[in-house]
């Protein structure tokens, strides 16, 4: 992870990553940014995870309420090609429209794949030795 200012002030509950299967995947194609979040976005502070992912943390509860991945297709999927084929199927459902209410998205399989990936990523980070999902 990058240098930390006040990480110790939030007791991050990494087990809440399990909620990710209920999140909504949204892709901003113009900016190449992928978001996974509650249908209505919640206020949060972001934590850089190894330069790849911003975990969005509720500063009051420590819950993980979403994540943000910049340069998703240009960098992230090339670094983690195992996700690329699943993304190819899910992408058309995740493109964000600027107007109107988000459509109901059925991305259950993709979300399960993403969750497994995240669990592995967080567990394997040596700085997160207390992580347990």
């Amino acid at each position: 992870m990058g240098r930390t200012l006040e990480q110790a002030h939030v007791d991050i509950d990494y087990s809440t990553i399990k909620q990710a299967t209920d999140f909504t995947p949204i892709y901003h194609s113009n900016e190449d940014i992928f978001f996974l979040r509650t249908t209505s976005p919640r206020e949060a502070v972001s934590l850089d995870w190894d330069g790849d992912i911003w975990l969005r943390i509720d500063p009051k509860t420590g819950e993980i309420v979403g994540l943000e991945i910049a340069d998703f297709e240009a960098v992230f999927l090339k670094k983690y090609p195992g996700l690329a084929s699943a993304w190819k199927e899910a992408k058309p459902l995740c493109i964000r429209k600027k107007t109107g209410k988000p459509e109901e998205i059925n991305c259950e399989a993709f979300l399960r794949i993403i969750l497994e990936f995240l669990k592995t990523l967080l567990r394997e980070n040596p700085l997160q030795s207390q992580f347990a999902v």
Partner: protein
Amino acid sequence: MFKCIDRNGIVIICSKDTWENHVLAEHPEMKGCEGYVKAVIEKPFQVYQDGRHPNIKVIYKPFILPKPYNLYYLRVAIKYRKKTLGSLKGYVSTAFPCMNIRKGDILIWEEL
């Protein structure tokens, strides 16, 4: 939405579209924080070169946002572009509170 000048004298623009459809749409905690973003651009604490994009610089400043984000950094990313026959301008691409500096961002300036 707003314009300001960065520490190098370059005009920085934050469009209404960026503010509403990217910053607020995905970072609702930034509602009402335009003034803090402007203040960080005008008087940064640290300026980083984005490790992936040569035309993007990232500004960090701690302790500027209101509670409950007052202990964190405000991170503002600015994309610089020079149009033909035009001058170099910067465009805010995102802004949000964060706990740490992103790995890969390269420190190029800091307030002494």
